[in-house]
């Protein structure tokens, strides 16, 4: 269920907003005013602390330790179109809560209407990721956060204008002072920190799969368990790369999915001759909340989970364009999954849905700009598992 903000609405009637002194759900406030992630996976360990394994395996180390105020400031910034050059697009325009923090499109559209070349990834649990972007080119959420702001085909802004807009707004300077009390002025790095802080608070670990993993075997029905067993079988081999508990091993894989009709082949990570072995390689995405983030793959070629699953059963390299030499991942083979098994996989992937810790969308923004139109259409209850 999507919840509308009441606190923000009240606060905006007065001249100032007070940032929340409380951590978001699943975070514990420390004496140092830091929010530390706590989850039921803290019961477990993982080999070499890599956060990959089976049902009762610890998660990878998460980015946490931001202050409640930084997280709350990040929430306002994330939804505020003030960050784009023409004040029409917010981060949330392509990372919409209603679509698992992606946008429901194969390829994302920029603030000036430019169509990009890749599909907006969902952001649930993004704080666990060691590399960001489909091609892994950013190492931190902070580094990642600024890149779309300044990309001409995305939010098309400049550092100067972002700072000027924020500094000249009536409310933001005070909010930045609350979030960064030690600082003398509003800086771009604080924008990045706040956006990273908010994104790291997007935690989805209460799905029915999680209930099963923690020991409540009735959480999944027979067909869902069949799907789980296909998923982790060494025939389909999904779990070899989409490894629990995060459902990614965070590696690069060359799997050879097709681009949409008419689109040039995307080399992914392998942009230079030295990286030729990784040509066509992309980061393995987490599958948590994957049922919410259609269409699938780096350029959104597959409309449904069934289509995406079927890709792996259609033969090694069947969609590689003529003339492309790719070193396909060793787990891409010919599993010969039956239509029934492909359906069971999709059924299982639906058990990874959990939006119980959905953040509140601010209904009024510190910039006084309206929320982007794509966020104001009524949200249907998507039947969260809680």
């Amino acid at each position, binding site marked *: *269920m999507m919840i509308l903000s009441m606190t923000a609405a009240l606060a905006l009637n007065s001249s100032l907003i007070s940032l929340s002194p409380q951590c978001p*759900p*699943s975070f*514990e406030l420390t004496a140092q005013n830091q929010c530390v992630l706590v989850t*039921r996976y*803290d019961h477990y360990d993982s080999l070499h602390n890599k956060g990959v394994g089976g049902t*009762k395996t610890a998660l990878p180390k998460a980015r946490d330790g931001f202050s409640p105020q930084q997280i709350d400031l990040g929430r306002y910034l994330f939804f505020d179109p003030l960050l784009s050059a023409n004040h029409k697009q917010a981060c949330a325009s392509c990372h919409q809560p209603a679509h698992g923090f992606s946008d429901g499109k194969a390829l994302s559209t920029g603030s000036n209407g430019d169509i990009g070349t890749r599909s907006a990834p969902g952001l649930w649990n993004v704080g666990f990721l060691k590399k960001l972007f489909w091609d892994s080119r950013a190492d931190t959420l902070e580094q990642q956060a600024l890149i779309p702001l300044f990309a001409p085909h995305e939010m098309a802004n400049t550092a100067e204008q972002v700072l000027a807009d924020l500094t000249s707004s009536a409310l933001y300077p005070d909010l930045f002072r609350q979030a960064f009390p030690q600082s003398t002025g509003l800086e771009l790095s604080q924008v990045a920190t706040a956006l990273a802080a908010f994104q790291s608070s997007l935690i989805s670990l209460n799905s029915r799969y999680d209930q099963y993993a923690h020991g409540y075997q009735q959480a999944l029905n027979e067909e869902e368990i069949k799907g789980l067993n296909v998923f982790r079988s060494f025939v389909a081999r999904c779990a070899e790369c989409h490894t629990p508990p995060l459902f990614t*091993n*965070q590696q690069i894989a060359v799997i050879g999915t097709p681009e949409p009709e008419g689109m040039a082949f995307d080399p992914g990570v392998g942009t230079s001759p030295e990286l030729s072995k990784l040509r066509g390689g992309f980061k393995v995405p987490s599958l948590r909340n994957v049922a919410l983030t259609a269409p699938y793959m780096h350029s959104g070629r597959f409309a449904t989970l069934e289509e995406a699953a079927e890709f792996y059963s259609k033969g090694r390299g069947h969609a590689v364009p003529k003339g492309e030499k790719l070193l396909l991942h*060793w787990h891409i083979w010919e599993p010969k999954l039956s239509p029934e098994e492909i359906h069971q996989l999709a059924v299982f992937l639906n058990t990874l849905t959990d939006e119980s810790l959905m953040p509140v969308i601010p209904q009024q923004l510190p910039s006084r700009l309206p929320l982007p139109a794509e966020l104001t259409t009524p949200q249907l209850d998507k039947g969260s598992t809680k």
Partner: protein
Amino acid sequence: MKKSTLTLVALVPLAFFAGYYLTSTATVAPVITADVSYSGGAAVGGNAKKSVLNNMPTGTVHEVKDGQLIMDAVKAAKPGDVIQVWPGNYTETVYIDKDNIRLSGVIIEGKRPRLFGDGHLNDAILYSGNNIVIENFLITKYKGNGIMGQAGNNFEIRNNIIEDTGVYGIFPQLGENGIVEHNVVSGIEDAAIYIGMSDHIHVANNEVFDSVAGIEIENSRHAIVENNFVHNNTGGILAFVTPGLPIKDTVDVIIRNNWISNNNTKNFGAEGSMVAGIPAGTGVLIMAADKVIIEDNLILGNKTAAIIITDHQNAPNTTLDPESDPTPDEIMILNNLMYNNGYDTVPEAKVLLATELKQGNPDIVRVGASNNSCINNPQQYISAGVSDWPACTFSNTDTIVNYLLDEPAAPRSVDVKDKGKYAYLGICTGCHAYTGRLIGPPVQVIQSLYMDDPKALAAYIANPIKKREDYPAMPKQDYLDEETRQAVALYMLSVKN
């Protein structure tokens, strides 16, 4: 049926591994024998029976007979239980997402329970729990793996026969402290026994044959492979670093006292798989692994070479991974018996020999870089690429009985208070703020209602009823076990902000 005159007691001293000893009357349930050593002779040596589990099972015994489903017993079993599977045909995938389960075949007059995949089932046995024992099965005709572990610690996989079954025969992955011994595995399209991304492993006394790879230790640390009979595969024993996996290295592997012979089977691995690049006729293959000791093996009749050592650059099908070190360092070759190897070798090996002005059939071929490696008595062998290796500073590994953990790997936390905290923060705070309305009423209000009665709160969350007109109904939290519900109630009533 004639009743056996042998008593259980008489059989015990002859036991060379743990198992069940039966009278020939099928109605008598097997008894798990205690460990008793035959007395006399030398002190306990390397053949001491190993176990990674502390105790004998204490729970209920569930018997499964022909015509029943093993899975029904697994579903009914609680941690500590034993599932005894009697001889018969079982066509199912058995998955164990529980801890402390002993899945144990009963062998009657040579007949074992047969897990039959019928050519269409994926894997025979999957487990993700800790402290799992799987023993005494015959597994055949599955598409995927025979026995597959996903992150279970403290496992024992023994005395199984696995024939003509898919990709890996036995494949524990992402676990630590495990034993794979006394299994017979054949007809596998990749590795018969594959240790993947695991630590503290003992692979001993197995027979592996007619597979692409016999025994593979991949991205794993602290593993001993000893006393195995490895024959008629494409490659015998492999110690690999595969790039592109989340755990990046292979360190501390001892390969000793194995019989590695005639691994000349034509490679039938799947296209693109790492093993598809192994030249038929490879006894031992070391790729990018570090600190590998090869000691006292009989390596006979492998037509390409007894031992090949390579880095990633010279190996086919390896991807690029800046986080994996591509070089095999500190390879230590002690005494081994190598005979009649390399008689039909690959042209590359001949070229390497020629660069050292050597001729003949190679025993050892090293390609690419290797640092700080050593070899004892190298004059015994025809070798390429090891002539500048010094002698090792030791001649045996006798003091290392195994690399298993002294105590079973324990879960990180079993503290009940922590259970309450993790569940409160991870679940409850999604709807309940300390003060103020979120989705449900504030924690302060709940505290005022239940302060003296955590039991009532624990009972309520398992089966909530709608109480407040202006709030949505609370969903059931009955997926939390009773202990966790009590703990979370106590925790919720104690929080201060």
